[in-house]
C-alpha cells in the first residue's frame, strides 16, 4: 500500500473528471510569487495553505491556514516552509482555491476481498465520523463497473434527492473509475462540497492509497510515495529502501526512536512474531527489520550496519524460522561483515547479540556466528531446537 500526498492525489482525481479546486504545490515563496503572476485565480480567489507532507493533525499544528488573500498565502507559505515537526521538515506547501460552500458530503471507494465498495453519505467532515450508519454502500465484484441505476440508487439511499442525486451518482461513478483504473486501494473525499458558483460537486480533500505493486503499468505515477506513519522516512530507512529496490529478495528497515531492543530477523512472517515477543516481554523495540527471499549478502550487510547504528541499543535479535531457500550461511555472512564493520567503528560496545535460525546450510551459518565469540562479540547462538522466540525471552531476562 502506498500513500500519495494530496497534490498528486487530486491530480489523479482530476484526470478522471472529478472537480477539484485549483491548486499549486510549491517549495518556496518565490515560486508562489511567480505562479501568482501566471495564474489569475491565485490573485482573485480566497486561498487555503496546507503543509504538503505526510503529517497527521495538521490543523492542530497550525499547518493549515484558510481564508487568505494572495499576500496572506505568501506569508503562510513563508511561515510553514522549513518548520520542523518531530523528524519532519516541511519542504512543500499546497496552495489551493477556497471553495465557498454550504453542504458537506462524503464519498469513498475501498478495496474488498471480492472487489470494492463505493461509500456515500449525505454528511461530511467530522460529522460523518460520528454518523457512520449514514454511510451507504454499493458492493462490486472485481471486474465489474457500477451501473448508472446502481449509483443513483446509492445516492438516493444515502439521502440525496432530485438533481443532487444525479450529481452524487455521477461523482461516485468518477470516483470508482479513478479507483479502478489507477489501481487504488483506498480513495476518500471528505468533504465533497457543492460549489456555490455553479452548483457542481467538488472534492475538497483527497486521501489516496495506491497499490505500489501496480506501478509498472502506470508510467504517469511520477510522484514519490509518502510514509504512512505520520512522519517522513529517515535517511537510513531510505538507504535500505534504495537497496531493496535493486535486489532479488527484500530488506526492510523502520526506525522506532527510544527503543533499546534492535531487530534483525529473517522473513516477513517471523519478524512480526519476534516484534510481538519483545513487546510481550515488556521490551522496547528500537526498529523493525526484515530480510527475506534469499537476498544477496551485501544487502543484508547494509541492513546490519543500519541496525548496529541505532542509538542506545542493548540487544540485537538475529532471529529467523527454518528457511525454505534462503541460504543461512550466505546471509549470515552479510550480517557477520556488518557486525565486524560496526565493531571496528566502535559500535556494539556492551550490546548482546542473540541468534536463532534454521534452513539451508544452517550448521555452517550458525558455526560462523558462534566463531564471532573469539573476536570479542557478546554473542549467543541457538539452533532450531530452541523455539523461535525464546531468544527474546533470554535477551530480555538478562536486563
Amino acid at each position: 500500500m502506498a500513500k500519495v500526498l494530496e497534490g498528486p492525489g487530486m491530480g489523479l482525481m482530476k484526470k478522471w473528471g472529478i472537480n477539484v479546486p485549483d491548486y499549486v504545490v510549491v517549495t518556496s515563496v518565490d515560486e508562489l510569487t511567480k505562479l501568482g503572476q501566471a495564474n489569475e485565480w491565485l490573485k482573485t480567489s480566497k486561498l487555503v495553505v496546507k503543509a504538503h507532507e505526510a503529517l497527521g493533525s495538521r490543523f492542530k499544528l497550525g499547518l493549515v491556514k484558510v481564508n487568505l488573500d494572495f499576500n496572506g498565502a505568501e506569508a503562510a507559505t513563508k511561515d510553514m516552509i522549513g518548520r520542523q515537526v518531530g523528524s519532519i521538515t516541511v519542504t512543500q506547501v499546497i496552495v489551493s482555491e477556497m471553495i465557498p460552500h454550504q453542504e458537506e458530503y462524503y464519498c469513498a471507494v475501498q478495496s474488498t476481498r471480492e472487489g470494492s465498495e463505493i461509500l456515500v453519505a449525505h454528511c461530511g467532515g467530522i460529522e460523518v465520523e460520528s454518523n457512520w450508519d449514514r454511510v451507504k454502500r454499493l458492493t462490486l465484484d472485481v471486474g465489474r463497473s457500477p451501473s448508472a441505476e446502481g449509483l443513483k440508487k446509492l445516492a438516493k439511499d444515502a439521502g440525496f434527492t432530485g438533481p443532487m442525486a444525479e450529481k452524487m451518482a455521477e461523482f461516485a461513478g468518477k470516483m470508482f473509475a479513478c479507483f479502478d483504473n489507477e489501481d487504488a486501494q483506498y480513495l476518500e473525499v471528505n468533504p465533497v462540497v457543492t460549489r456555490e458558483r455553479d452548483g457542481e460537486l467538488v472534492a475538497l480533500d483527497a486521501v489516496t492509497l495506491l497499490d505500489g505493486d501496480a506501478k509498472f503499468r502506470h508510467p504517469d505515477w511520477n510522484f514519490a510515495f509518502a510514509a504512512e506513519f505520520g512522519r517522513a522516512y529517515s535517511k537510513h530507512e531510505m538507504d535500505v529502501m534504495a537497496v531493496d529496490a535493486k535486489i532479488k529478495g527484500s530488506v526492510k528497515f523502520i526506525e522506532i526512536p527510544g527503543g533499546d531492543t534492535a531487530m534483525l530477523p529473517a522473513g516477513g512472517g517471523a519478524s512480526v512474531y519476534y516484534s510481538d515477543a519483545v513487546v510481550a516481554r515488556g521490551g522496547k523495540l528500537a526498529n523493525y527489520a526484515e530480510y527475506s527471499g534469499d537476498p544477496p549478502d551485501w544487502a543484508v550487510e547494509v541492513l546490519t550496519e543500519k541496525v548496529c547504528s541505532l542509538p542506545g541499543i542493548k540487544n540485537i535479535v538475529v532471529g529467523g524460522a527454518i528457511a525454505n531457500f534462503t541460504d543461512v550461511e550466505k546471509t549470515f555472512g552479510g550480517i557477520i561483515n556488518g557486525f565486524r564493520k560496526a565493531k571496528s567503528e566502535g559500535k556494539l560496545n556492551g550490546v548482546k547479540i542473540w541468534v536463532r535460525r534454521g534452513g539451508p546450510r544452517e550448521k555452517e551459518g550458525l558455526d560462523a556466528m558462534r566463531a564471532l565469540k573469539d573476536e570479542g562479540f557478546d554473542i549467543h547462538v541457538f539452533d532450531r531446537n530452541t523455539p523461535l522466540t525464546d531468544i527474546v525471552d533470554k535477551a530480555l531476562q538478562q536486563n
Partner: protein
Amino acid sequence: MSILANKDTRVVIQGGQAGVNAARRMAEFCYLIKKPLNVEAFVYPPDAGKTNEIPYGSGLLAIPIYKTIAEATTHHPQINTSLVYIGADRAMKGGMEALDNTHINVVSMITEGVPEKDAKLLGVHARKLGKVFNGPSSIGVISAGACRLGVIGGAFDNLVISKLYREGSFGVITKSGGLSNEIIWICSQFADGITTAIGIGGDAYPGTDYVSYLDMFENDPQTKAVVIVGEMGGDLEERAAEWYGAKKRRVKLIAVVSGFCQESLPKGMKFGHAGAKEGMKGEGSARSKSDALKKAGALVPPTFGALGPAIKEAYQELLKTGQVKEVVEPAVLPRLPKSVEEAMKSDEVMVAPLIRTTISDDRGDEPCYDGYPASELINKGYEIPHVIGLLWDKRLISKQEAEIIKRIMMLSADHGPCVSGAYATILAACAGIGLSQSVAAGMIMIGPRFGGAVTDAGRFFKYAVENKMSVDEFLAYMKKNHGPVPGIGHRVKSLRNPDKRVKELVGYVKSLNIKTPCLDFALEVEKITSVKKDNLILNVDGTMAAVLVDIGFPVDSLNGFFILSRTIGLIGHWVDQKRQDSRLIRLFDFLVNYAAPKRREVPPLK
C-alpha cells in the same frame, strides 16, 4: 491422505530460473519418497523447444520446455497442476492461461508483488471455474509422503528431520513461507508430523483463504488437527473462527496470530507482509483475531513459543482417544547423493586432481601470483615485468632485471606491417576476422624463421658457455649437429646497416654492472660470422636470448618474451585496420609468378 497435492499430482511450471530451482527441490522430495519426478514440463517461451536439466538422485532428467500451457498439456495430458513463477507484471496473464486450461485444476502462484486487482481477478476467475487458485506470494504446498509443490519444506536434510517422507495427522495453513517450515518442523517434533502444509501467501487478498482449506481438511480423514499461523490485517482469521464456531468440527483448530506489537507502536506503522495492515477503523488487529478464534473454541496459545507445547497437548489427546497411533519410522531412508564438492568437504572421498599448478591461485578474493596478492604487488610498486618473473620463473626479479625486460618488450613490440606476423594479422583484419583470431593468425607466423629463434638461440649460447667452448668450437659444433646458428643473421640488416635495437639493448646491458657471459659470447660469435658474410650479425632474437639467459630466465620461456611483446603490435595492427575500415586484400596477378603448366585438355576419366 492429503489435500490439494497428492501422489497423482502432475505439474507444469511456468517461468524461468526460479521455476527450475523449485523443480530441483521438488525432485529431491520425489527422490526421498521414491516416486518419479512430478514435474512434467515447463512453460517459458524464451527457451521453448529446449529442456531443463533436473538432478534426480545421482542422475539428470531432461524436462521439456514449451511455449504455451496448451502445448504442454497436449504433450503431457496427465498435467493437472500449474506453479507460476512468472514476474509480477505478467503473472496474471500466465495465471489466467493456466486456469483456462481444461487439464489444470490447481494453480499456485509464487510470484510476489502481484497487484491486488490482478490477484482478485484470478481468485474470482478460479472460483467461477470451480478450480483452486493459491497465492500469490505462496511458498507452495507439501503433502507428506506424497507431493511437493514449490520449495516449501526447505533443504533435503530438513525434509528428513521434519519427517516429510510419511504422513502425520496435522494440517498446516500459513501466510508466511518461513513459518510454514517452522510449523512443519514443530509438528514433527511435538507430534507425528503433517498431512498437508499450505502457504496461502501474505498478500491482502489471497486467492484461496483459510476457510476453503479448512473445509478440505475437515473432509480428509487422515487430518486430525489443523494449525493456522495468522497475521493481523484483513478478516481471514475471523472467517476461519466463524467457520470453526459455526458447528461441531471433526478437526481440532490450533491458531496463533501475529501483530500484537502494533498496539504499542506509532499508529499507522506497518510491518511484515503486504496484507498485514490494520483496517481504517482498527478492525483486523491481532487481538480481535485472537479473541475471535478463542471464542470459536480454537486452541490459541499466548505466544508463538507456546505453539509447540499446544500441538503436543493436542497430539497426546489424539493418542489417548485412539484417533492416532504411534508412528513407526522406517529403518532406512534414501540419502541424497552428495556432490563431489560436498563429499570432499566432509572428507568422505578423495579425488585425484586432473591438473596441477604451481604459479597462481584465484580462489580467494583476488588472484595470487606465486603466492603474492596482485593488489599488494601493485601497492608496493611492482610492475608488469615482476608479474612476468613470478608467473614465468616463480621468482621476484630485481628492479634492474625488470628494467631490462621492460626495454626488451619496448624494443620488440612491433616491427612494421611487412613482417610475417603483422602482415598475417593485417590480412586477417582486412578479411573481417575478429581480434583474437587475427592476432592468432599473426602468432602462427612466429617460428624458426620469424621471431621464434629466441629460445633456440638462448639454448645454444648457454650450452657453449656452460661447456666453455671457444667460438670456433661452437661454430663447428653447430655446423655438425644443427646447422645455422639461431640468433645470428638478418634478412635486411647487416654490418653496414646495423640494427639499432641490438645496439640499444647491448649498450644498456653493458652499462650495468652485471655479468653477461652469454651476451659476451654471442658478440664474439658475431665478430667471426659477420666477417664471413656481412648480414650474419647478432640479431634482436639472439641479443634478447643472451641477455635473458644472463639474468636467469629458463630457456623454455624465452620465445615468450617475443610473443608477448609482439602481441602489443599485432593488436595495434588489427585495431588500425578496423579504424580505417580497410577493404579485403587480394594479391595482384603481377605479384605472382605463374609457373604452373599451361591450360590443357582434361583426358577422359578411366
